[in-house]
């Protein structure tokens, strides 16, 4: 197998692994994760009325 092919396959695998570990890294901290999901995280108020069900109750 030509060297260039081995290199390209290795690059593909490397990028795939970097993608995985990057995603896990940026979502890594439980405190940050909890803070992002909590109501007091500073998320912008939903401009479209938020998540409510068909009967008008909030989800």
């Amino acid at each position: 197998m030509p060297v260039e092919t081995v290199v390209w396959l290795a690059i593909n695998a490397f990028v795939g692994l970097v993608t995985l570990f990057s995603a896990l890294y940026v979502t890594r901290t439980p405190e940050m994760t909890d803070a992002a999901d909590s109501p007091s995280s500073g998320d912008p108020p939903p401009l479209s009325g938020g998540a409510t069900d068909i009967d008008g109750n909030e989800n």
Partner: protein
Amino acid sequence: MESVNVYYAVSSLVFLAALLLVGYWLSRRQRVVSTHDFAVASRQMNAPRMVLMNIATYLSAVSLIGFTGYGYASGFALASFFFGTILGHLPLSLVARRLHSWHVSSIPEFVGQRYNSTMLRGWFGLIFIAIYTVYLMLNLVGVGVLLHSVAGLPIWLSELVVLLALMAYVALGGMRVTSLINSVQAVVILVVVTGGALIAIGTAGGFLALLDNVRAIDPTLLSATSDGALTPGILLGTTLGWMSGVACRADFGAQALSGSRARVAGWTLGLPAIVIVVTYFGLNLIGLSVRTQLPHLASADAAFPLFFREVAPNWTGWIMIFALLSGITAACDSYILTISTIVSNDIVKPIMHWRQATLARTERVSVNTARVTVLVSSAVAFVVSLSNLPLLALATLSLFIVWGAACFVPLYGGLLWRRGSMVAALSSSVVGIVLAAVWLNAPPFAPGSSALVSLVGSLVVYVGVSFLRQGTRQPEAAATQVLD
């Protein structure tokens, strides 16, 4: 006229009937109660389900056949030519937490909130509706051709039964049921591809023996650049084009938004990339195996089905059909789900708010609109796919280039840069589309340059206009809170 292959035809119809019944049963057990629930399952999904849904959505039957065919025709050039489809997952992975922190139901809704603009939300909504409608039609064309060539079923019948099989569970179950079904289909696809690759190696007498057989047919098949035919300029263009389109997939964004925690979004956007790398390699081996055994096929697209009919043991034929049908339905249902979500959440819902409808009425109308859109989009795609338009010509890099040119800069600018303004986002999107469309039709003096030109142009406009204009106070404050 092709004669019907009773074995494959019955297998296909049994699979689709089971899908219809199981999907409908699941939908009845898990009732959709809001647009948020329809679109992102009220953000209650776990990582395994969303990762598998992501994989199933990406590995459509068109992908299985197309990548195997490319491996048949061009060998390991698949690793370089489609590298951008892997790289496109990286930007998504980097913004996984930021994206998940916006409690929205769709990518256009994020754009609308980030830039405080209903118009921009509608603009992105229309772009995604157009793109996913084209992709739905492309997949239906692929469905028709595939089942016609493999099972001898009429093209129109093949497309119709596939749509009927999935419309019910998409319309009634939304993301919750669609993701569950897709996760099972992903397992089927991965098992078949892995098994196929192992069979390809085994029938050749080993991996090195397979490479020797390929070298005897055509040594350039072993080259990742087809012995230099894929120049750095071409590869740069293809990489940027594929990358920018993949990085802007609204269905991937919705899958990340469906996670119960940011870490679920991380897994959803991070793990599929390496799985797809392995899958590409497996499909490549299958394509090369067919090339050594059937070196003079009229169409490389026949490589995948013929592998299971001519190379693999006979009993694997039905598994191949199930894998292809899984890929077909997983992609189609995801595209239909995306289209119906955007129509209801990003077109109808803002209109209802503008008309000052009550929240309850808004949700009722939006959910019903989503269900109706499932039917309408399926019908439109069905009719157009039978009209002999050159749709397959669109299933190329060109569509991804235009897609990325329209969405990449404003989307990621909005996620990563607090100074990005609404006007900058809209103008960069329009400029990107124009540059991509013009450059794609320009004399090919610089192959692959359209992606580079359109992305750079879009970025320059976005940054320049943002610096020239001050964003409004509200979006900056909102963006600052999240971007901090």
